[in-house]
């Protein structure tokens, strides 16, 4: 149905994944830079919980390749890869994570609460609760007579939350242009998929909502790209929602500081990293050589470090203004 990605697109997919990974590596570094002595979660330039998405880049890259910034994406507590793949401004995103006045939310939101009207991007720290607002964005797009779509993301753990069910039913009932994405990284914090979900695939649940459901087993960006292409095309054509589940990989801990003692597969994890795999694929296809890969990486590093620098140099919000923006007039609470 969807054409396989052309050569340019394949390199683009790679570029997106590298950018996302580079960002996560920088966050990892900055996050841990000043938590010591010991580890104090509230300390440092980037305090609080930090959920990084390393290993899950194929999902974001493959899906967002079909979107423009007129389309909406609602992501999860683990939002960076989707934000980046969807084209969010890196500087303002980094600044938000550093809690600066120049951030997407002027430092009020933080890494789980990134809102970008320019790309119709948002995320939420409450699992599965990003699905319902995506319906509303899709509803508004449909109503305006456009072919814009909304992508809604959850993890496999979140797919057992009530909001999942309600959202799929309503989207199907009203034929809303939504693509539901489930990132199955095998874990909901320390709880393995088999202890949370009674079926091996959320794709089988799609039938209960009269929508196509696909599961991609191997965390391969091009397989995601193909499935997402079908789903986005269907949504743009006015044929309603679809569900895509990707069996992906949580390369690191649930959040930073997670010792992962519960994770028996931990040895095996680095070998499953999708990034070198895809690099190899593109090399074998003659689309990338060592220099080319290095250039992609260098470009990503430059962008990310620029964003980090921007963030660090940006002013912190004025504590006297902590009460502003509770209401739409921007005034104090």
């Amino acid at each position: 149905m969807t054409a396989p990605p052309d050569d340019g697109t394949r390199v683009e997919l790679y570029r997106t994944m590298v950018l996302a990974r580079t960002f996560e590596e920088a966050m990892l570094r900055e996050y841990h830079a000043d938590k010591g002595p010991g580890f104090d979660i509230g300390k440092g330039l980037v305090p609080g919980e930090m959920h990084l998405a390393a290993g899950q880049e194929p999902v974001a890259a493959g899906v967002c390749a079909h979107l423009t910034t007129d389309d909406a994406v609602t992501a999860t507590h683990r939002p960076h890869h989707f934000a980046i793949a969807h084209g969010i401004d890196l500087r303002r995103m980094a600044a938000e994570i550093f809690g600066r006045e120049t951030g997407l939310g002027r430092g009020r939101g933080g890494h789980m609460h990134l809102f970008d009207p320019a790309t119709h991007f948002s995320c939420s720290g409450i699992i599965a609760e990003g699905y319902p607002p995506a319906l509303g964005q899709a509803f508004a797009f449909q109503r305006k007579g456009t072919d814009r779509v909304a992508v809604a993301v959850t993890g496999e753990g979140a797919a057992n939350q009530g909001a999942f069910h309600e959202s799929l039913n309503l989207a199907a009932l009203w034929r809303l242009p939504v693509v539901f994405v489930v990132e199955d990284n095998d874990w909901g914090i320390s709880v393995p998929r088999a202890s949370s979900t009674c079926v091996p695939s959320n794709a089988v649940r799609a039938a209960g909502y009269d929508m196509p459901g696909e599961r991609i087993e191997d965390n391969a960006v091009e397989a995601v790209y193909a499935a997402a292409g079908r789903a986005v095309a269907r949504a743009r054509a006015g044929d309603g929602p679809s569900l895509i589940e990707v069996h992906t990989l949580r390369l690191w801990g649930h959040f930073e500081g997670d010792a992962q003692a519960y994770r028996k597969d931990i040895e095996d994890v680095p070998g499953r990293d999708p990034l070198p795999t895809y690099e190899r694929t593109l090399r074998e296809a003659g689309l990338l050589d060592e220099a080319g890969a290095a250039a992609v990486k260098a470009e990503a590093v430059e962008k990310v470090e620029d964003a980090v620098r921007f963030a660090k140099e940006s002013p912190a919000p004025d504590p006297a203004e902590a009460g502003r923006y509770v209401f739409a007039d921007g005034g104090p609470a």
Partner: protein
Amino acid sequence: MTATASRHRLTTAKAMVDGIAAEMERDESVIVLGEDVGAYGGIFSSSTGLLDRFGATRVIDTPISETAFIGLGIGAAVEGLRPIVELMFVDFFGVCMDQIYNHMAKISYESGGNVKVPMVLTTAVGGGYSDGAQHSQCLWGTFAHLPGMKVVVPSNPYDAKGLMISAIRDDSPVVYMFHKGVLGLPWMAKNPRSVDEVPDEPFTVPIGKARVARAGSDVTVVTVSLSVHHALDVADRLATEGVDVEVLDLRSLVPLDREAILTSVAKTGRLVVVDEDYLSYGLSGEVVATVTDVDPGLLRAKVARVAVPDVPIPYAHALEYAVLPRPERIEAAIRAVVGA
């Protein structure tokens, strides 16, 4: 409005719908969503006639999926629509509060003011007709405690229309709580004050300004919604005994018109708070603290709080009436406070 502006006698329910219709007429982006808001016209007549007038693309029945359709309202508001979304009974907030308080109410703040959620959440509140513990609550204290949403609680037809228009035009989320007992529904006991003359033209009542429903000098009764009617009835009765009661209708809990409370208490020196929500950790305490934040010396007598005494609303009529702030309890409280 000019002096010749036309008016009609409307029930509170009709006045509310009138406000919605006026805004739907004026602004294409206003839509109505909820359970039974279409053909049924709202279980409590909160959308009667709107389907016929504006059609099924703007007045939309939803599945019983409050999380999904309230969330849908939020996303639609973010993209520029102005949805009015009905939660049939406030008692059902527990199935969908996350969308309401963690999303609708926080997005403005979390986005540093970059995203607006111009949405109205309408919901029916209140008891008095034996609907039991899960269908009779007010819960405005619960909503008002959580930041980021305005909370509006009209008591009469004029305010119902004016506050509704203000709510729809507000760029912040507004929770609009209508008490079943003030609506003037034909199938429920009602106070005569639930029908009144209302201007036909659109008009606004500002959100955050209390109304002195009755001026008086001996004691201040601060209250909202149906209890305003009861308080006024009691005040009329006590006036014949020379007790001059001031009744303050807050009209909204967020923002709370603290000035109005202070002005009145400064005048009377005596305070009774009447609240159909639960007693503890709610409206009544907040009203009291509004005074003591400034000057406890304003209070010349102990304060009386007439509220539901931390008991689920009972079903049996006599039990329910024992816990509700009925006129008898209000009267007794006023007498105790003025020493009459």
